């Protein structure tokens, strides 16, 4: 442990513990998942950075979206994200979730993932190297320190807009809203 950080540990122990034990949900979309097995195994060993993959969203607080998101995959992504514990962090991996990448004019690919769920950081590239994941993790530490990795807060605050976008892309959603949508405040915001 870094001695310089002792004051931080004493001040906000929960936050520091969260920061150094990121549990990544093992969720595969697109081709970027091919980079994840070497990252979590002996060659690059993500556990040096406190990142460990877990099986279910209920145990996870880091969501790596690895590669293009087809319309059909968006549905489980939203469901997975909503099941995760707060504080939860999302990182878009590869250029496809950012703006569609090479699938920018595809009939069946979601172009901007941050229209549907909040994203805390992006890793650009096609494909990014495994080292880029660690750079992203260290950046994420800084963001958590400064309180800027606040995707879940933004999700709660703007939930009606996220839900509206999700319904625009997927049609009617077959699960209830995660947060209560106050219809009056929604109208007031639109006006």
């Amino acid at each position, binding site marked *: 442990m870094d001695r310089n950080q002792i004051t931080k540990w004493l001040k906000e122990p929960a936050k520091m513990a969260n920061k150094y034990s990121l549990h990544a949900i093992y969720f595969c979309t697109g081709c970027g998942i091919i980079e994840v097995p070497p990252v979590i195994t002996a060659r690059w060993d993500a556990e040096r950075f406190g990142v460990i993959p877990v099986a279910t969203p209920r145990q996870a607080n880091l969501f790596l979206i690895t590669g293009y998101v087809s319309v059909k995959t968006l549905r489980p992504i939203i469901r997975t994200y909503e099941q995760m514990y707060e504080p939860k962090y999302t990182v878009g991996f590869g250029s496809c979730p950012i703006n569609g990448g090479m699938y920018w004019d595809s009939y069946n690919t979601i*172009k901007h993932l941050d229209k549907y769920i909040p994203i805390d950081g992006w890793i650009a590239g096609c494909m990014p190297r495994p080292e880029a994941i660690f750079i992203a993790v260290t950046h994420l530490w800084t963001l958590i320190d400064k309180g800027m990795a606040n995707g879940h807060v933004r999700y709660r605050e703007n939930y009606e807009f996220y839900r509206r976008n999700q319904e*625009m892309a997927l049609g009617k959603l077959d699960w209830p809203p995660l947060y209560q949508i106050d219809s009056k405040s929604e109208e007031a915001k639109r006006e």
Partner: protein
Amino acid sequence: MNELLKKEIESVFKDVLIADYGDNRATITIKNEQILPVLRFLNDKGFDHLALLSAVDWIEQKEFELVYILTRYMQGDEEHTDKEKLHLIVKTRISRQRPQLETATAIFPNAEPYEREIHELFGITFEGHKRLTPLLLERDYEIPPFRKDFDTREYVKDAFDKIPFIRNEKE
């Protein structure tokens, strides 16, 4: 391609065009009403594996082309002494106005998912297919998306670019 097989096909079926591409590839082009008899004939000859069924949209000729690639599992054993690894590519064309064809699932059961996929992406109906339900796509498309007249950019502008970005109200 084996000369014997070639002559046999030509003697049994009319209007058949056989072209060789090297030692182990040959295309058989036929009229669409003959597709099932040809497939059944080749299946009896030992071509028991449908490796691929796909479609091509020839929009200028106003036709769809269906491509069946047949091969066999038992190649070069004692029973089939010709010892050639032959891939037969059976091609047929159907009109674009009335995209219909008989199903090949009675001969090759594994044609089922291929035909469902083609039905969904090209809008070709296979008569007699028992389960032409949606397979891959999530959204509804007016024109099936793999047809050449489907404008992907217009579709993306309409469907995805219209969805607004989220602005944080506090900022």
